[in-house]
């Protein structure tokens, strides 16, 4: 085997598996060869010692304006001095005489935070003993605050991706670049690729992966029969072109963007009724393969791209060429936002929303956890608090916490002038009808009164008439007394009690108004992030992250360690600050070290079940190191070169041999159970939406209409949350949930996502909580999932629907029905023995259920029981619950 791999990369990656979480020591071997004679090498200052000091000491000793004890530990040569008490900070060669070591040994330091581990202390001691040397020249002096060293900048994630040449294998020169990178690593670990998966398995995998739906039996047999060498790539193209592709891959992006149909934060968790327009935008963008540089720019700064400021947005939403860019900016308004609800501290709620928005942006695009730098400098990554507030300042003109706009104040009406006129006209008519109803009511009551007054003694009639005609507040005590004396004669209200027939006429009239109002054109709203022209707030550092402790002013900018140009208005004619646009352009310039890598890592993770960096939202020092750095860089560079086409990258990934492997490879399972080296396609459970959608699809229930208002979530009396409409009684309690509308069977992406009311079927299978977003979903295996698949009404009914579907398709042929249900759910026909056994079970099950219904006759008006269907349904339910069905392999 001959191949070329840059040595630095090799060494770096070789270190991956020797580092637990925490401070990495990956490049130690590069700067200092092991000492002779087997003694352990002296610790390297830059890579081993300084990170310990940074984690435990320099926060007080150097980074804060006030220097703890007058000691600055940011640079080695700063340690040549003495403490305030005159002790030598450092005595090279003699740890026992070094104050630095003594205070740690004796537990005096660190005063705050956790103590050093014995290993960390030993590293320091050994370094001092070996002479306390540095490997690289240090600057003579430093400005106050944290300092980013060259060593920091050398960390792989902060260096731009380098175009990688794939390794070459003489015996298989046509290996695709992805496969070459993967194969090299596999061979390093004594592993190889698995066989190619069977076609039926492969198509199911591909279809679930690209569209979130299983293939039909006809699609499988067509693929199996296709002799064309391009058979597989034809399937790839078909699925990428399917509208279901956008519905599936939008879901992945909505996770990291933190999409929800409610506002969150406050207890109320109020509805975010118009959020779906952003969801639809994402689906459209993915289906159209909108280049991701554009996609990102629109979401961060669509308003600025369209040249729209707050004052002009009302008109701009009607401009078709600008609509998508404006709809995209709801991305910046997805974080939990309690500012429209009752909250204890409004300023806190605003600042929390901004912090969450920064978190969404940074985890989704930068793959860094910057959140801790909100309160203090990051202890592990070279991200300072100033960095954090510079990043935040990019968004300040749009999200100004002092001049805040609540969610409702971000809405822009989609009413046209014609709509507006029409609505006003209808309202006018409705008001007139209501007035008419009111006068009818009065007229009936007056007529009544003329009869009732005759029941009063004649002498009091005039006085009573006068009392009735007087407004209640202006009546004299005598008048009140008189009315009390003959209460039922009053006839001023409650027509329904006196004359239900007349009242019905009034109510009918009123209903006309309601009905008429319903014909108003629906008023759509679009959430748009905008800036008020010329309104650029001052951005300050918030001491300890507290908005009441403002410190120095900061200018907008990228995290210092990532470099990047100054944030300047890209176009002087812009009415807005241009900050977000400039930032978005930098992020998508192709030169940013993280964006393309983070995106490609996530896409890879969805296809292969595991990220190359297995902490997809943390590429920093506390994250995991990439298992295949060269591959990741190759993909990142390719992505940019492809014009940021996601579909191009899907194609390259799913066409690879790596992707097409079987899920069975005993050597890989044994040596690499987590499949770090991709020696098989690791079998994995479907995610929540795919479990539900696949069940509905094979049962023939799935409604495939796209886009629009979400299907509401409703809480049943048993505590399930299901798709449906709550039917309330007069007290506002739910008496039942109406699930009769076909829309309840729409794809999961169209179900209402309420932060505090997750749909049970999705929640059971690890639907993430959007707080504020979700970077990667866990996959759990717990007994409640088993109970759900065994007993939940959704699965029971879906099993029944599957039974009905095959009975209808193949009437009268029980064997054919069984085979059909089997192919639909298991991807293959049953073996003869399986089929026979199924039929025996079916007749036994039918018998049991027949017995039951004989003993438990239902109410007379209930539909007749159908034991045969229910029995078949229960066995179909088991097919749906089976591991083969709810996993992809």
């Amino acid at each position, binding site marked *: 085997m001959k191949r070329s791999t840059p040595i630095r990369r090799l060494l770096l990656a070789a270190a991956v598996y020797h580092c637990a*979480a925490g401070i990495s020591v990956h490049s130690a071997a590069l700067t200092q060869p092991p000492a002779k004679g087997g003694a352990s090498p002296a610790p390297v200052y830059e890579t081993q010692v300084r990170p310990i000091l940074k984690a435990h000491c320099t926060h007080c000793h150097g980074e804060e304006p006030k220097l703890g004890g007058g000691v600055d530990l940011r640079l080695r040569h700063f340690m040549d001095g003495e403490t305030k008490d005159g002790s030598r900070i450092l005595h090279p060669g003699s740890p026992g005489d070094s104050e630095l070591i003594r205070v740690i040994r004796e537990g005096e330091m660190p005063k705050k935070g956790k*103590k050093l581990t014995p290993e960390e202390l030993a590293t320091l001691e050994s370094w001092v003993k070996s002479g306390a040397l540095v490997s690289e020249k240090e600057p003579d002096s430093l400005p106050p605050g944290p300092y980013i060293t060259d060593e920091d900048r050398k960390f792989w994630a902060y260096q731009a991706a380098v175009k990688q040449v794939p390794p070459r294998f003489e015996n298989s020169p046509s290996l695709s670049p992805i496969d070459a990178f993967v194969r090299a690593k596999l061979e390093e670990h004594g592993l190889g690729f698995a066989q190619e998966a069977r076609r039926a398995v492969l198509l199911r995998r591909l279809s679930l992966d690209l569209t979130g739906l299983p293939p039909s039996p006809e699609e499988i047999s067509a693929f199996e029969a296709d002799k064309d060498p391009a058979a597989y790539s034809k399937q790839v193209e078909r699925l990428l072109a399917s509208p279901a592709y956008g519905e599936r891959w939008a879901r992945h992006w909505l996770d990291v963007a933190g999409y929800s149909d409610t506002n969150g934060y406050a207890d109320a968790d109020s509805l975010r009724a118009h959020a779906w327009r952003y969801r639809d935008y994402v689906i459209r963008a993915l289906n159209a393969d909108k280049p991701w540089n554009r996609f990102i720019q629109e979401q961060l700064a669509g308003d600025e791209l369209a040249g729209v400021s707050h004052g002009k947005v009302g008109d701009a939403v009607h401009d078709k060429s600008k609509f998508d860019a404006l709809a995209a900016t709801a991305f910046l308004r997805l974080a939990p936002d309690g500012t429209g609800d009752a909250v204890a501290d409004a300023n806190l709620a605003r600042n929390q929303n901004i912090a969450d928005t920064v978190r969404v942006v940074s985890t989704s695009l930068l793959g860094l956890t910057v959140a801790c730098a909100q309160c203090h400098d990051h202890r592990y990554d070279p991200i300072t608090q100033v960095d954090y507030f510079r990043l935040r300042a990019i968004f300040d003109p749009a999200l100004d916490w002092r001049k805040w706009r609540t969610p409702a104040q971000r809405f822009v009406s989609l009413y046209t002038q014609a709509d507006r006129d029409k609505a006003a006209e209808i309202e006018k008519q409705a008001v007139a009808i209501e007035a008419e109803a009111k006068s009818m009511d009065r007229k009936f009551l007056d007529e009544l009164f003329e009869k009732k007054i005759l029941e009063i003694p004649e002498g009091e009639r005039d006085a009573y008439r006068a009392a009735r005609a007087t407004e209640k507040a202006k009546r004299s005590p005598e008048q009140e007394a008189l009315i009390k004396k003959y209460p039922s004669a009053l006839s001023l209200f409650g027509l329904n009690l006196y004359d239900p027939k007349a009242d019905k006429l009034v109510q009918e009239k009123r209903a006309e108004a309601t009905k008429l109002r319903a014909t108003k054109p629906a008023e759509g709203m679009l959430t748009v992030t905008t800036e008020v022209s010329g309104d650029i707030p001052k951005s300050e550092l918030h001491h300890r992250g507290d908005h009441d402790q403002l410190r120095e002013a900061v200018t907008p900018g990228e995290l210092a360690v990532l470099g990047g140009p100054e944030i300047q208005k890209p176009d002087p004619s812009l009415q807005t600050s241009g900050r977000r646009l400039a930032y978005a352009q930098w992020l998508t310039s192709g030169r940013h070290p993280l964006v393309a890598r983070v995106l490609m890592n996530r896409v890879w993770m969805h296809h292969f079940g595991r990220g190359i960096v*297995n902490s997809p939202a943390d590429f920093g020092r506390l994250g995991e190191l990439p298992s295949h750095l060269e591959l990741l860089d190759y993909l990142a560079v390719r992505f940019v070169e492809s014009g940021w086409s996601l579909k191009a990258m899907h194609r390259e990934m799913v066409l690879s041999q790596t992707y097409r492997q079987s899920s069975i490879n005993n050597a890989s399972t044994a040596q690499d159970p987590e499949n770090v080296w991709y020696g098989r396609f690791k079998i994995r459970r479907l995610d929540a939406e795919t479990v539900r959608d696949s069940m509905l699809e094979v049962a023939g229930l799935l409604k495939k209409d796209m886009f629009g208002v979400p299907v509401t979530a409703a809480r049943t009396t048993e505590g399930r949350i299901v798709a449906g409409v709550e039917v309330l009684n007069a007290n506002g309690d739910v008496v039942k949930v109406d699930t009769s509308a076909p829309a309840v069977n729409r794809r999961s992406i169209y179900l209402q996502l309420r932060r505090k009311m997750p749909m049970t079927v999705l929640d059971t299978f690890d639907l993430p909580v959007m707080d504020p977003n979700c970077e990667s979903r866990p996959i759990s295996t717990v007994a409640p999932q088993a109970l759900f698949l065994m007993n939940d009404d959704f699965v029971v009914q879906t099993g029944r629907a599957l039974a009905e579907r095959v009975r209808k398709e193949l009437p009268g042929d029980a064997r054919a029905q069984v085979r059909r249900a089997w192919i639909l759910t298991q991807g293959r026909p049953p073996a003869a023995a399986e089929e026979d056994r199924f039929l025996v079970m079916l007749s036994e099950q039918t018998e049991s259920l027949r017995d039951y219904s004989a003993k438990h006759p239902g109410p007379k008006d209930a539909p007749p029981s159908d034991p045969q269907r229910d029995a078949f349904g229960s066995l179909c339910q088991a097919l749906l619950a089976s591991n083969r069905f709810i996993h992809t392999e």
Partner: protein
Amino acid sequence: MNSNSSLCSRRHFLHSGGFGLGGLALASLLRDDRLLAAPVKPLLGAESFDVKPKIAPSPGRARAMISLFMMGGPSQMDLFDPKPMLAKYHGEKFPGEVIYDNVAQASSKVFGSPWTFKKSGQSGMELSELLPNLQQVADEITLIRSMRSGVSNHLQGMLAMQTGKGTVGRPTFGAWMAYALGSETQDLPAYVVLAHPSGLPTFQHQHWTNGWLPSTYQGTLVQAKAPYILNLDPPAAFLGKPQSRQMEFLKSLNGGHAAEHPGEHDLQARIASYELAGKMQVAAKEALDLSGEPEHVLKLYGIDNPLTADYGRRCLTARRLVERGVRYVQVLNNGQSWDHHGSIIKSLPERCAETDRPSAALILDLKQRGLLDSTVVHWGGEMGRLPVLQNDAGRDKWGRDHNTHGFSQWVAGGGFKGGLVFGETDEWGHKAVKDIVNHYDWHATVLHCFGFDHSKLGFIRNGGNLTLTDGQGARVVSELLA
């Protein structure tokens, strides 16, 4: 991790019916020897994970644990840690530096506890008048007044106390217990979480997450209202034979599939989850059904009183679960209901009134049944509160801000020393100063009670041996142990 089920007997296995033939029929099916035999060993010798009972390296006294977790941060100077200095300087400026979390409403005025303390039990442990029932069992509890996590805010504090560190994604203590010791019953989950009727704590599933441990070790949520565990039962017509037939079919499907994929743990785990689910159908209902408990027990827990009924029921349920072999039970509050930034004078007595009697009853009841010695009962939250006022806008609005630098919690049973007060905060109650117990020291100590060395009990992941205390320099606080 080896499992040898023949060595472990269930402590109290209660065979009880009363749920109709269907449930029993299913149970007997699942109790079938073939199913209870050790799971099929993966052909490749890779590790597979289960909740079969395990033996600790040096078995300790503790066999089970009940954590009464009080999310929000109960105020130690009003409940457990009397500070005369606060009363003396009430309303005056606090002389030192205070570490605030909520600076917006911060005040530096000293806030003397409005409540008095009483010397309780033989030991003379000083406890607040808000905890009259706890006072009665003072000699059974170990009161730690020097807890410290030092991380700010609720999520991080909760994570530190529950997972060993203030970062998201790590396994909770209960998950470690389930992983390390399994469950003494295979009919109930190893790790059960009992939710408050008004809802979950703020951070929801993070209270019972398995983190990066296998998902088998996640806590099972039990709601306070029926259906306690959603979907415990099939539709009526399927109870019994029809469901067992359905399950038999499913088992054959899954068995064939798993055989094609030797060594894939996820498939094994899912098959196991059905076994557990089937058994849970019977056993969970039996365990959650309090109707067979005698009058005096219900009364002891305050179940006859609307104020204490909910918490009483859940404490009693916790006892019943532990009695049946569940390893770890966590009883939760809703939201962060101990987070008294304001109106503490009204709200703190309310929270105490709900929980004091049932918590004390749990100790008495366990003791009377001979279970206290082997069951650790823990009462505490993720932090404590500050000695100064928050929200200085009138007495009825007064509160206290967060404090993770010094707070109190108590623990009973399982080898802890009764009647002991351990550790001290400074004279104001702000920071732990003597015999400090960091969250990781606490974890190391509890693991020790169960027979584990915290630095050794680990999970291999990405080439590293990850532990609960994670190299933070934890120590077993042996002074706490009898």
